[in-house]
């Protein structure tokens, strides 16, 4: 290389000064020799200043005089680079090579590796850095020598230095082994963890390092500690205090900072004011966190270590790489923190803690790093922050400014990262969050904040839909559970996204699924009207109540949806409304207006599952009818209230039937009272001694609602002369049975008198009640006829409830049962043994029905079932004594508790025909049409039948869907009336 250069130089020199050739050659050789000696020297003694010797000096001067200055410098640079490569770089990587070996050896013991990194990395970095420093120095010396005295000396020096810098960086970057970023990452990770731990420890003990503001600290920390149960949380929360503490330190003018600090702070404050509305004042100075206060937390040594590593890295051109290293360390720590504090806990808001943690740990860590990265010139500031997130540009005037700007950008970056991480986590857990809904409100609020920053709504919708499909909308989930979850979802998503767009997207699958369930409407109605905390729905009481509350709150919204209320606004309001207008979010379904989305409340959404309120209203009517018929008192207060609320929501006309039903109940109560009063009056006219209390008690019983018979018994028994009026006390019972044909007093009979046209159709069932009761019913009807002539009563004997007491030889028990059960058991009074057939005859129901119903008494241990040998008929015997029961029925203990559950509720079919039964009745009309059609046409496909029905059946008009018809035809196939082959239906050939 030296020869080549010499030749080239010789050529150039030949033209101008041939005579000097030998001198120049000589000088060049001398220069080369000296330069390489100097470089070798420099590398062996990195700290010593390069020796300037005269020979070198002279030779350089000679060469410069010949106009070969650039050649001299480029040779020198080349040589520097070569030397650096040979010695320093090789040495550096060699030392670090140990990393991969250690990593493999101690895969399960990261401590050792960490230790090694902590020890080695700073060492080798400082070595290489000082080597580079020495080389720089020699380069500077050379250039100074060359350009001594010229005007552009400083510029030239800078130029060559940066040239050198670039060359060395390139060399290092290209030769860096793959594990070098890993090492950096590990280093920063460990350091950051140390710092974080130091912060936490400091927060745990009362802050003593703060020069001022201790009392304030104590107070605030005390209050924080009250609700901080968890270490992490506590440390995060109390880091607020530390920040406050820091602020005080920073404002202390004794800090060795420039006097313009106050201005800087103000500037930072303005900046944050723009970017972070919600961030507290505590972090106001975080951007200017000083070395001192970090040192106070983590120790001088720690700060020194970190900042020297950063300096050295930057010095050798690894600024970008080191940024990557600490960034990933910070991110991973932040992520780990978020995961640790948020895992499966939704009762506390975490976002604020995360934010303050970001202030307390990573940003202060960063302020060290950024401060160590300085002092950069204005040119290199862009190099320090290669990824500006915010478009804030501050004229960089000093280290503080740079640090501050960097911290602000990092804050933005970290906050966004926190939002993203937390948001993703919460999105994935959204299902569980909503399961815990009212308690998990803080989590939802967090998620809302995250979403406003990240706009991950689409992701939320996708993820939540998947969760719903997997976890909720399965065959195994009870409809009530689905509904409850739906309600919670509605509420939660309302909080999170007031526009309702997300809800709309998420709710669609739930609605669709619920539409496919038969009992959805029934469940909704039950939830809406359920008595608070009542009966079997105890588990749902809370939500049922909340739905009921919902019902009482959101009034008349359904009626107003269509009305254009903009028209009602006057000019100013309309203008204000127009100003407030915001376009729908981009995800919104354009076919729906935002108004409809917002106005829908929970009830409307639930009812809207079916798209119409008619179905809902009908189901409510059926359920109300059932409920009213099973009432043994006439207390309808709650139902009236519910009905009033429903009327507001669904309109008066839709609820008309229900209103009449409730009125029937009230009328029944009045009539009942009148009849009883008439009886009492007759009795007193007949001169029978009726005690005043007793005659009073009858109308009273009517007025004050239902009076329990036991209470009446108590009253009557105290007046022993009362005979006829008594509800059967034990005496009367004895007397009556002695009579054989005993009479029941009219008092025991109460009636609900209904306007049958306005009630849903009832299950038609014949029932013969015992003669005693029959007589009673007739008498009651007669009395009704006298009061309300010319109206008559028609008894629905199978409906109602009977409260009775069974008196055995050794025990007695009270039951509340249906009339049929009562009729059955009453037949056993005179005859202890019945066969099923005979009994069915006597009761007037089919044997199958009888056998099903009688199971109640068998289960209660009142009757025993056995089979006769000869004809296989079932025989029922009364169990007169417990001993009998124990011996024969295997100890079915009769219930004697006073609670009197309404027995047989489960097995008793509802008295009212359900909507489905009604629907089947409707469909039955078409059976003859279908059969007729298939007689004429032999075979028909489904859609032809459908079309023909549509064409021919006009009274009532055929309005069923194809699916309904298919279901109906399927049933006919099941009943073996039709058969279905090759896509066509035909009559089954007998």
């Amino acid at each position: 290389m030296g020869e080549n250069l010499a030749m080239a130089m010789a050529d150039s020199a030949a033209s101008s000064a041939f005579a000097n050739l030998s001198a120049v050659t000589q000088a060049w050789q001398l220069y080369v020799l000296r330069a390489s000696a100097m470089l070798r020297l420099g590398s062996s003694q990195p700290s010593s200043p390069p020796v300037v010797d005269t020979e070198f000096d002279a030779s350089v001067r000679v060469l410069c005089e010949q106009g070969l200055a650039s050649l001299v410098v480029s040779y020198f640079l080349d040589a520097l680079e070569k030397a650096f490569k040979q010695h320093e770089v090789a040495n550096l990587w060699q030392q670090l090579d140990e990393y991969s070996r250690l990593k493999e050896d101690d895969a399960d013991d990261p401590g050792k590796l960490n230790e090694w990194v902590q020890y080695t990395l700073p060492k080798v970095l400082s070595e290489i850095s000082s080597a580079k420093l020495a080389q720089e120095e020699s380069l500077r010396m050379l250039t100074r020598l060359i350009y001594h005295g010229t005007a552009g000396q400083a510029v030239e020096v800078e130029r060559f230095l940066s040239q050198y810098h670039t060359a060395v960086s390139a060399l290092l970057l290209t030769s860096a082994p793959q594990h070098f970023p890993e090492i950096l990452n590990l280093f920063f990770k460990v350091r950051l963890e140390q710092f974080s731990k130091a912060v936490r420890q400091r927060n745990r003990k009362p802050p003593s390092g703060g020069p001022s503001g201790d009392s304030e600290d104590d107070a605030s920390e005390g209050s924080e500690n009250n609700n901080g149960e968890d270490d992490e949380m506590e440390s995060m929360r109390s880091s607020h205090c530390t920040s406050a503490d820091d602020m005080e330190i920073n404002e202390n003018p004794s800090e060795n900072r420039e006097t313009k600090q106050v201005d800087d702070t103000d500037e930072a404050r303005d900046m944050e004011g723009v970017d972070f509305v919600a961030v507290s004042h505590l972090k106001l100075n975080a951007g200017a966190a000083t070395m001192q206060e970090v040192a106070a937390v983590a120790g001088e040594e720690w700060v020194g270590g970190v900042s020297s590593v950063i300096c050295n890295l930057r010095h050798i051109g690894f600024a970008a790489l080191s940024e990557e290293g600490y960034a990933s360390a910070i991110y991973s720590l932040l992520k780990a923190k978020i995961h640790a504090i948020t895992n499966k806990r939704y009762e506390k808001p975490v976002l604020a803690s995360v934010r303050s943690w970001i202030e307390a740990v990573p940003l202060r860590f960063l302020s060290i790093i950024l401060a160590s990265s300085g002092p950069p010139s204005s040119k290199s500031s862009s190099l320090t922050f290669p990824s500006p997130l915010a478009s804030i540009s501050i004229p960089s005037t000093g280290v503080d400014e740079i640090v501050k700007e960097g911290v602000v950008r990092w804050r933005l970056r970290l906050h966004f990262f926190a939002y993203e991480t937390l948001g993703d986590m919460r999105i994935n857990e959204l299902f569980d969050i909503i399961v815990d809904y009212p308690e998990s409100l803080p989590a939802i609020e967090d998620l809302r904040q995250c979403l406003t920053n990240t706009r991950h709504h689409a992701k939320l919708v996708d993820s939540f839909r998947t969760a719903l499909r997997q976890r909720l909308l399965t065959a195994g989930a009870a409809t009530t559970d689905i509904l409850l979850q739906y309600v919670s979802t509605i509420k939660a998503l309302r909080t999170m996204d007031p526009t309702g767009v997300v809800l709309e997207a998420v709710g669609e699958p739930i609605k669709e699924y619920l539409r496919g369930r038969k009992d959805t409407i029934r469940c909704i109605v039950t939830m809406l009207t359920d008595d608070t905390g009542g009966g079997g729905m105890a588990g749902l009481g809370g939500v049922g109540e909340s739905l009921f509350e919902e019902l009482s709150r959101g009034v008349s919204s359904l009626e107003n949806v269509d009305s254009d209320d903009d028209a009602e606004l006057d000019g100013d309001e309309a203008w204000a409304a127009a100003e407030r207008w915001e376009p729908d979010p981009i995800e919104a379904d354009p076919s729906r207006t935002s108004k409809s989305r917002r106005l829908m409340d929970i009830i409307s959404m639930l009812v809207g599952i079916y798209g119409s309120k008619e179905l809902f209203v009908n189901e409510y009517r059926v359920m109300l009818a059932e409920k009213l018929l099973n009432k043994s008192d006439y207390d309808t207060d709650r139902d009236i209230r519910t009905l009033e609320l429903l009327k507001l929501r669904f309109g008066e006309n839709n609820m008309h039937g229900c209103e009449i039903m409730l009125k029937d109940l009230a009328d029944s109560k009045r009539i009942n009272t009148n009849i009883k009063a008439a009886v009492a009056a007759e009795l007193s006219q007949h001169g029978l001694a009726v005690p005043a209390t007793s005659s009073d008690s009858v109308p009273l019983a009517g007025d004050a609602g239902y009076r329990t018979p036991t209470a009446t018994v108590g009253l009557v028994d105290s007046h022993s002369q009362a005979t006829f009026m008594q509800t059967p006390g034990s005496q009367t019972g004895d007397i009556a049975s002695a009579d054989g044909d005993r009479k029941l007093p009219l008092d025991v009979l109460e009636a609900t008198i209904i306007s049958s046209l306005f009630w849903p159709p009832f299950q038609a069932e014949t029932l013969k009640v015992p003669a005693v009761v029959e007589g009673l019913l007739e008498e009651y009807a007669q009395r009704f006829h006298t009061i309300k002539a010319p109206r008559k009563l028609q008894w629905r004997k199978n409906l109602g409830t009977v409260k009775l007491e069974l008196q055995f030889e050794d025990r007695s028990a009270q039951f509340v049962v249906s009339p049929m059960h009562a009729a059955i058991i009453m037949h056993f009074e005179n005859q202890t043994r019945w066969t099923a057939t005979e009994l069915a005859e006597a009761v007037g129901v089919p044997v199958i029905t009888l056998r099903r119903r009688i199971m109640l008494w068998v289960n209660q241990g009142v009757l025993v079932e056995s089979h006769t040998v000869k004809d296989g008929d079932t025989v029922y015997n009364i169990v007169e004594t417990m001993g009998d029961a124990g011996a024969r029925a295997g100890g079915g203990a009769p219930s004697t508790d006073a609670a009197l559950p309404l027995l047989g509720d489960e097995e008793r079919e509802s008295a009212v025909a359900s909507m489905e039964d009604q629907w089947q009745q409707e469909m039955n009309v078409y059976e003859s049409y279908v059969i007729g059609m298939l007689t004429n046409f032999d075979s028909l496909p489904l859609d032809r039948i459908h079309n023909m029905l549509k064409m021919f059946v006009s009274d009532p008009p055929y309005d069923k869907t194809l699916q309904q018809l298919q279901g109906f035809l399927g049933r006919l196939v099941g009943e073996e009336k039709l058969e279905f082959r090759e896509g066509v239906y035909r009559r089954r050939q007998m």
Partner: protein
Amino acid sequence: MKVKILQWHAVASWTWDAHDDACGICRMAFDGCCPDCKMPGDDCPLMWGACNHAFHLHCILKWVNSQSPRPQCPMCRRDWKFRGD
């Protein structure tokens, strides 16, 4: 064994017992109410004529008032007289 009935809560439906289903004037069911009424029963009673035809009270009154001076039964065209008058 003895069965003691403590309370028998029965269910019955009332009817006007008009030997027909619907009012000849409004064609609404007798056991329902006339188009002007909301509540059946006492609020919308039936009225029988001397010819034994029954109508909702409100319906037949309207008819009678519009037919003065000599109202006839809408069903049989005999002179309308309220039964029992």
